[in-house]
């Protein structure tokens, strides 16, 4: 087996560029490719155009790091852990020095758009969006750059009457076409074949729709028994350009069968993200002052990581405390 796809974590910087439309795999708090994103932050990338649907700490953090100029997604947040203060601040206190455009969508339309991207068709009809202010032309967050920026669809949506069946009015939405797709999975084979457990979300579709695909995995494995394994092999190696082994590479998000969310990280991060100054300190300490991801994990500490480790049968850790207001009682 050739292993020419294997890279070092730091090399991720060579394959993601300022201005790229970026799909980040996983789902809000789960299986986010955090270690790879940390590299982009340390490389001080700018002008990223976020297209993942939805976003979690990955997206809020990239925004707070000044890496993002555009996002079109359905949600940015930390679920019950708390609010996405970096994202909020960008919209509530627009900063002329850091232009940021946001275009709102929904999970249903984000799904249809990346499905259209995977199918290689430029648009797809959907029943979603009707009745919502999201459809109103004045709420088109990319209004001012449509027809100008070639990485943005010329219009946000179109409507048409179904000519085939009952003649209902339908909404057409444009395909999502990410330039680069970053995923974190449980296992990847040397040829790039990715194995995911506990839900693949939109990872396969995003890999198919993207021009470049980089996968970090808890473990790089030899191909193993193909006959047995094909049900778990979610993404064919052919789609994958580069792979990198990063144990705990999804920290602080949860990776089914490996580890759970790290509530300590969220407690500290969310507190810091409430102000620009504290956020700057947090970035300095956790990103720029961490020479490597190993160094970052060392700072997190073995004791905390051990606590996150998933129970084999359950797929998650029964030991973590999931209420930030009660964390101190326990560790």
């Amino acid at each position, binding site marked *: 087996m050739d292993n020419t796809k294997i890279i070092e974590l730091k090399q991720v910087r060579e394959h993601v560029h300022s201005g790229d439309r970026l799909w980040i795999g996983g789902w809000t708090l789960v*299986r986010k490719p955090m270690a790879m994103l940390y590299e982009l932050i340390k490389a001080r990338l700018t002008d990223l155009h976020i297209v993942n649907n939805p976003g979690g700490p990955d997206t809020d953090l990239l925004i707070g790091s000044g890496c993002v100029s555009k996002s079109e997604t359905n949600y940015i947040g930390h679920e019950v852990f708390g609010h996405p203060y970096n994202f909020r601040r960008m919209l509530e206190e627009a900063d002329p020095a850091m232009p940021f455009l946001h275009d709102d969508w929904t*999970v249903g339309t984000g799904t249809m758009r990346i499905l259209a991207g995977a199918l290689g068709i430029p648009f797809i009809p959907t029943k979603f969006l009707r009745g919502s202010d*999201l459809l109103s*032309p004045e709420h088109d967050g990319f209004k001012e750059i449509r027809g100008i920026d070639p990485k943005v669809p010329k219009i946000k949506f179109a*409507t048409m009457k179904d000519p085939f069946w009952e003649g209902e009015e339908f909404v057409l939405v444009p395909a999502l076409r990410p330039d680069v797709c970053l995923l974190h999975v449980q296992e990847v084979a040397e040829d790039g074949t990715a194995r995911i457990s506990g*839900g693949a*979300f939109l990872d396969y579709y995003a890999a198919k729709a993207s021009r470049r695909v980089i996968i970090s995995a808890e473990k790089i494995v030899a191909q193993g028994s193909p006959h047995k394994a094909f049900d778990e092999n979610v993404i064919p190696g052919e789609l994958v350009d580069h792979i990198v082994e990063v144990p705990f590479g999804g920290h602080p998000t949860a990776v089914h069968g490996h580890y759970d969310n790290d509530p300590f990280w969220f407690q500290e991060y969310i507190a810091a993200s409430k102000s620009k100054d504290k956020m700057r300190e947090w970035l300095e300490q956790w990103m720029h002052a961490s020479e490597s991801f190993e160094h970052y994990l060392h700072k997190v500490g073995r004791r905390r990581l051990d606590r996150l480790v998933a129970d084999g049968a359950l797929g*998650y850790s029964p030991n973590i405390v999931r209420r930030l207001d009660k964390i101190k009682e326990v560790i």
Partner: protein
Amino acid sequence: MNSDYSHLEMMVIAASRLLSDHQKVLVGTGIPLVAGALAKKTHARKMKMLMEAVAYDCDPESLPFCVADPRAVYQTKWLPTPVEVMGQYLQGGDIDFGFLGGAQVDKFGNLNSTCIGTYQKPRKRFEGSGGASDIALMAKNTIIIMSHEKRRFVDAVDFITSPGWYCRSLDGRSRMMRSEMGMAGGPYAVVSTLGVMKFDEVSKLMYVDSYFEDLGVELATIEQETGFAIDVSRARPLPPPTHLELETLRTKVDPEGIYMKY
């Protein structure tokens, strides 16, 4: 176990009572998940609970933290992606109940989880729709669950993220009754910390259907905490939690108090 119970608990219990066996219920992250899990562990064992990211028929042992949580897939028989759950089941019209929260609800059951103020220059920006807009549009019925406060129960939401009964027209320029737009579904109930609201068959305006009398809630309290004139003439007291409901909620559904904040 404490025989006292909170408004939060009564809200979740009242919501769970609206669900029954053989329904397909799509639950959003947060409180809806708690109410769904409670129904499934008490009176609606055969209810199918779906979550937008990953779960088709979910009966978690430990409360999922979000709709993609590894806890949501424990022991499930089929593991879909959002293409199936949202693209096919929800869009295909197969979901009986959608279960949503939000920052604001108005008298027509429109929900806002986008922003306060204008969209272009929001005073307060929220996380965004997630799947809420889709669920409110395509589920056969929607249940809204939300703390009852005047700033949340408003005459008209600042932004219609999720359409209720009187919502945005296709050209985005005016507002229309949901039925005129050929949209099925619509809000069935709003369950709050004070009671259960429903919508008038004809006017589609919110009214009080029942209230938590056992917790000392009076109809005047609801009127006071609601930002628009609300009909309370049809309201009746809701029976308090049963022992089974409270015990299941406290010991099996949310023993950590993640949402119930014990």
